[in-house]
């Protein structure tokens, strides 16, 4: 088992003919993801890599190819529309890779998704991978291996780092989910934690947070109150200065709120394992899974 994506995932790629879209579509196809269609307005009727039909609209792609999941690689200015188009067309899971989406756009997109009952991952996220089954987004497939650990993270390359260390230590993953670094995103830690709690194949979870906001604190509370499985957490940004945005639009300490310390304390308080260094995650997992 896995969460959000599996062998039944039928993927449409929005922006399939763009630089990033085409590169990652090939990667996903190589990994075994069922890429059933692509969308690029004006290129309807063509084929990607001589096999994947391209449509002008997501609506057509869904109608013609039964896509149930979409991944978005369009420029920031069109990303809000792309997300809403996917939801409107009947897609169940929308994964928006695009970085740089204006936050005000998300104040429209977020309630739209809620109204439609559609799960949105991102924007500004690396997507997700259920090793051995399906990969949607840009997480490198070769660093992952199937196994019992669920991973959820606000970061991209830091996720790779941790997955890599876990894989090297022989700890495979059910699903690795990057929820994205933007301040308003579709799916939060708690959504993923509760999915992992329900997933029978996941036996422990790694949660990678960073400075900014209070999602990690709330997630820690959720872990204590609702979860039976062990959770190990890591927070990036202990050395981040207040008031500066650390790359991710959401990674900012405002006043005294959103610091790494505060988040690590919340982890401690609610019984999560707290990794001081990335490398500590593996050890803590082993300890807690005994």
């Amino acid at each position, binding site marked *: 088992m896995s969460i959000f994506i599996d062998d039944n995932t039928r993927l449409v790629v929005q922006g399939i003919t763009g630089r*990033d879209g085409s*590169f990652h579509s090939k990667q996903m196809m190589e990994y075994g993801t069922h890429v059933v269609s692509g969308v690029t307005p004006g290129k309807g009727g063509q084929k990607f890599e001589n096999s994947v039909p391209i449509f002008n609209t997501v609506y057509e792609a869904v109608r013609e190819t039964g896509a149930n999941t979409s991944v978005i690689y369009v420029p920031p*200015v069109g990303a809000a529309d792309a997300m809403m188009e996917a939801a409107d067309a009947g897609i169940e899971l929308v994964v928006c890779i695009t*970085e*740089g*989406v*204006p*936050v*005000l756009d*998300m*104040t*429209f997109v*977020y*309630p739209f998704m809620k109204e439609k009952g559609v799960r949105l991952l991102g924007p500004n996220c*690396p997507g997700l991978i259920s090793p051995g089954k399906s990969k949607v987004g*840009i*997480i*490198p497939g070769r*660093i992952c291996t199937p196994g019992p650990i669920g991973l959820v*993270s*606000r*970061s*991209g*390359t*830091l*996720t790779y*780092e941790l997955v890599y260390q876990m894989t090297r230590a022989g700890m495979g993953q059910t699903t690795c989910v990057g929820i994205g*670094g933007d*301040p*308003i995103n579709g799916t939060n830690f708690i959504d993923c934690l509760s999915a992992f709690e329900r997933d029978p194949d996941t036996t422990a979870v790694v949660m*990678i947070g*960073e400075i*900014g*906001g*209070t999602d990690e604190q709330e997630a820690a509370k959720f872990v204590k109150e609702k979860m039976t499985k062990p959770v190990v957490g*890591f927070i*990036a*940004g*202990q*050395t*981040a*200065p207040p*008031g*500066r*945005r*650390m*790359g*991710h*639009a*959401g*990674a*900012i300490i*405002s*006043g005294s*709120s959103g610091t*790494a310390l505060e988040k690590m304390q919340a982890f401690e308080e609610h019984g999560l394992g707290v990794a*001081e*260094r*990335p*490398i500590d995650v593996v050890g803590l997992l082993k300890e807690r899974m005994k």
Partner: protein
Amino acid sequence: MRLARGQAITGAKLNIHEYQAKEIFRSHGVPIPPGDVATTPEEAESIARQFGGTVVVKAQVHAGGRGKAGGVKLAKTAQEAKDVASKILGMKIKGITVEKVLVTPAADIATEAYVGIILDRVSKKPVFMVSPAGGIEIEEVAATTPEKIMRLPIDSRYGLRGYQAMELGFFLYSDVKQVRAAATIMQDLYHAFMDSGASLAEINPLVTTPAGEVLALDAKMVIDDNELARRPSIAALRDESSEDPSEVAARQANLTFIKLDGNVGCIVNGAGLAMATMDLVKYYGGDPANFLDIGGSSNPEKVVSALRIITSDPNVKAILFNIFGGITRTDDVANGIVTATKANPLKVPIVIRLTGTNEEIAVKILTANGFSAMTDMDEAVKKAVALATGKAA
């Protein structure tokens, strides 16, 4: 009461000057007394003479607490305006040199209130914050008298509704005329906020005059960087003279860079990994000199720019590369290092950690050019700290 600011989506975005924010607010209908910008004491004098009467001379810098720092002064005559301006121009406020002052007629003030809109990550909405206790920083009000702040999240699908604007107005005033005037200002401010792609818009203070008028005496606005591509007129408001030159250079090279005071220069791909790298530098006894994310697409030129920016910081005693190749091709990074160091030989030691996409090619390139490469993050950080601090790794 939770202070929304703690959840505000603000900070390292585009700050614009008070006079620019005022221009935007004014164009949306907010009543704001006139004002003009001076870059010399003489200009300030002539502006003050035109207005006649007492004026306020205000430093135009992107920093809070101007008043306390002496950046805001009254001047009763044009001559006095010149004197005051000559003191303010050139002074440093929170490390930033004042290049411009705004000269504006002094208003008679009966009451001072605070009105602000921030983008809030918890409610995922623009949130109004208003307080009848204006003129001081809202954080201070929140700390001492939180009951004097009203927070009102706005659903941008419906916009700021008239009844909400009135509720905000009633929180500030009891006279219904002033309530209505304030409600109109809330609407104007909301439109300015939305139309500019702001993450913060603030009037502090919003004053009433003895005659009962409601006026905005100060204006502040922060723009979401992601909005600039579709709002060229807002993007044009950027004043690079008020920013750190190394950050300007980084932005021009499409790098995300924040200067700090440490001794280990860090060049990383990905924001989360960059922060984790800095934390690890600290963990092992070093101090990160910066946050620098080269981003996903790693063409060698970006690496060259990154090295140029890092090496221009005299505090940097060692350079640490930490690259996890996913989209980023590690061979591109290796080529960038070789190119940059050939053009400008390094004066400080360098530690390179890379793994992932095209790792084998990268290692070959580096080795052929006299660099050694590591694959373990922890080891690499330890080594860089040792080199920077002069202690054995």
